[in-house]
């Protein structure tokens, strides 16, 4: 068998996932409307605009988490429906390469969602982005997304091809992802200056988010093989 480099496997998986998205349009037709709907529902539930501005960072990340659950379910339903993961394993492909490919695809999709949700928060909740906090905002989003994508990919792989995964996935992902929710929310609050917070309060959170991303990235690339193995 021709030796295929890990990177090219990951790249192929990433491209394949993005191509599926482009053709099926599930992202545009279903997931993005869903996350926009979540933002609108928060506004219904919390009524006053000043409250919404105050809690907007938390709501953005909650909506990201909920959307991620949907994306992961979809992303692995695609893999398991025609036994693609098993076929890859039978072909002797390195599972960690598959992990990083799925991870990258999830990162891309989450980034799209996050940009749109921040836009929605500006439009709907009256959030103002200040130039001084932009660096913190972007670095927070990157590290939080990397961590979330790692967690989502690990547990998505576990639940792939198993009945009952629709209900199991949130139960597994949400507790693990809670440090990201706490950390990313506080860091974004600092970046936006919500409730009089300063930029400097955000940096410790960025440390937490980075450690989280690295931990679960490394864990995922080891754990993915045993998890999906038949």
């Amino acid at each position, binding site marked *: 068998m021709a030796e295929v480099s890990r990177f090219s496997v990951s790249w192929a998986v990433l491209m394949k996932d993005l191509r599926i998205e482009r053709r099926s349009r599930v992202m545009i037709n279903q997931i993005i409307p869903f996350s926009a709907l979540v933002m609108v529902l928060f506004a219904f539930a919390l009524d006053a605009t000043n409250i919404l501005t105050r809690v907007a960072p938390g709501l953005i990340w909650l909506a990201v988490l909920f959307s991620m659950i949907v994306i992961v379910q979809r992303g692995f339903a695609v893999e398991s429906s025609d036994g693609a993961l098993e076929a890859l394993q039978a072909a002797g492909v390195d599972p960690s390469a598959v992990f990083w490919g799925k991870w990258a695809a999830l990162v891309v999709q989450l980034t799209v969602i996050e940009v749109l949700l921040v836009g929605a928060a500006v439009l709907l909740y009256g959030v103002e982005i200040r130039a001084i906090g932009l660096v913190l905002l972007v670095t927070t989003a990157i590290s939080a997304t990397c961590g979330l994508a790692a967690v989502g990919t*690990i547990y998505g792989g*576990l639940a792939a091809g*198993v*009945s*009952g995964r629709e209900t*199991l996935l949130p*139960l*597994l992902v*949400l*507790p*693990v992802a*809670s*440090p990201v929710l*706490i*950390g990313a929310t*506080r860091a974004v609050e600092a970046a936006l200056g919500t409730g009089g917070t300063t930029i400097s*309060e955000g940096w*410790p*959170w960025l440390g*937490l988010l980075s*450690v*989280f991303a690295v*931990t*679960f990235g490394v*864990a995922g690339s080891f*754990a993915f093989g*045993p*998890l999906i*193995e*038949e």
Partner: protein
Amino acid sequence: MTTITPQTIQAPRHRGTGTRATRVVGIATIIMIGWLAVFGLVISPADRDQGDSVRIMYVHVPSVWLAYLAFIVTAVCSAIHLIGKRHSLGVDRVAGASAEIGVVFMAVTLVTGMLWGRITWGVYWQWDARLTTTALLFVSYIGYLAVRGLEGTREQRARRSAVIGLLVVLEIPLVHWSVRLWRSLHQEATVLGTDLDVSLDGLMLFSLFVGVVAFTLLFIWLVLHRSRTLTMIDLSGDRDLDAALASRRAEGGADRV
């Protein structure tokens, strides 16, 4: 005169999951729990600051200790299962039994902790690092047990749950760190002025010690019984499968005739 009926022949000499060892541990557990009730509720004095509510500590602290011990056992067994050459299913069952027991103890811990909090703080819940970590850990292990219940072969179950068992261990420090940082930034003066770190006098410390010993014995007893029960669930599942296969084969044979 005795007649030997088929039933008395079939009746197994060893009933259930008990052995001499579990009976010894079981009796010791019952004695220690009796002691715990006597010391915790009657003999030990009321605390200077907390009053009688400190008595809840004698069951609360041992049960939280036990829950964490159970989860450590699960993690160690998970690691042994994954690293070991045999990928032993027996170790996996001990991990599962231990996690189940841990979840029970953790539920009890949360409830007794809330009762104590109601008396001491006036509210059932505080967003304190320790409490929040414990609650998330509880949910995570419920997830672990759900993974154990997924369809698939025994080997699949064992491997999956071992990986999840180890991932939860990674989660604990991150959750704890995040919640601590969160509370420290947003709460200048801690509400938890009366924390668990009370100055314990000798008799209180001894009551706590009795509780820890009692619960540790209880844990050993429960793990032995529970893992044996899980073994038998697997074995009887195999037997059902064998029986089903045999009857199917018999049917097939009958058809051919």
